[in-house]
């Protein structure tokens, strides 16, 4: 288990920001992100569900990422469940450039950002 220092990006968070930024402005959804993080490795090398979505949730709450649910009709037309797309926010870009957050993330103190 990695114990984070407040305001410092973890290697996984940095990688997620880099992938999301590379896919800007379209954004990236969970499984595609897992594939890109694995760098084309085999399926059994993909990042675990729990690790990935916990990190995404944490980063969204810290304001580094913005998440939007895809339109249900578009997903239904392709015969698949809706995707949740993540895009890097200005704060995320800044964190990536400086290697950390300007202020420590205030977790669980209010309603979650979208």
């Amino acid at each position, binding site marked *: 288990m990695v114990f984070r220092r407040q305001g410092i990006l973890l290697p996984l968070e940095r990688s997620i920001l880099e992938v999301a930024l590379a896919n800007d402005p379209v954004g990236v959804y969970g499984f595609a992100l897992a594939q890109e993080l694995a760098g084309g490795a085999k399926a059994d090398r993909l990042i*675990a569900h729990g690790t990935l979505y916990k990190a995404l949730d944490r980063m969204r709450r810290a304001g580094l990422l913005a998440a939007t649910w895809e339109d249900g009709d578009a997903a239904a037309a392709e015969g698949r469940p809706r995707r949740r797309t993540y895009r890097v926010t200005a704060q995320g870009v800044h964190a990536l450039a400086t290697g950390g957050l300007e202020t420590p993330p205030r977790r669980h103190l209010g309603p979650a950002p979208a």
Partner: protein
Amino acid sequence: MTARPNRPPRLVAWWVERYTATAPEPDGADRRAEVHSDLHEQLAAAARSGVASRRAAMAIGGRTLRGVPADIAWRLGTEMRPGRLEWHLAHPSVLLGFLLVLLVPTSTMLDAAQGSATWLAPASVVLVPLLSILGCCALGFAAVAAGRFLLRRSARPGARGRGWLRRAAVCWMSPSWAAAGLWRFDAEPLEAVAALAWAGFGVAFLVYAVAIVGHLCARFLDLGKLPS
């Protein structure tokens, strides 16, 4: 033996449903939908690249297994979010059940080991008060929840019969577990009361176990359904 290639995704769906069932909304629903989408995407990607379905299912199972500690950490973290105390007061059996499942085996092991394992004595100095504090917290929580319920300050949680059975068992287990704790002090006048309480606890725990097993059986019947 016939392989069931879609079994890991079903188990994944079951696991996600389990740890998000009592999570705050919309976080729980979002997590279920995200993992559901992820499972679909991974199976579709495997089919496109000609990977055997059994191998894809094993890969999904492995991803889930490796993520269990993070799932549990995430779920515990959600309990720190605003409004959780209110939610637990309206649904007391969830927290009480969790505490009792933690308390019962530990205190029973301590009781069983006290006579023979002298090495356990130093640990007991810490564990027994800790368990007592946890038990008192559970009792206090149950009292507050019951008070709020009686004062009708919270909505009566609607549930089917199995849910009520589980709640009733938990309500009886909490005081009987505390009363049975008196046994530790070997107080003569209280011994009969403590024995009775301990027996009552056993019955309530059995009822609780039956309710939980019934719930698991019901879940198993639709284990194959992915969350919609």
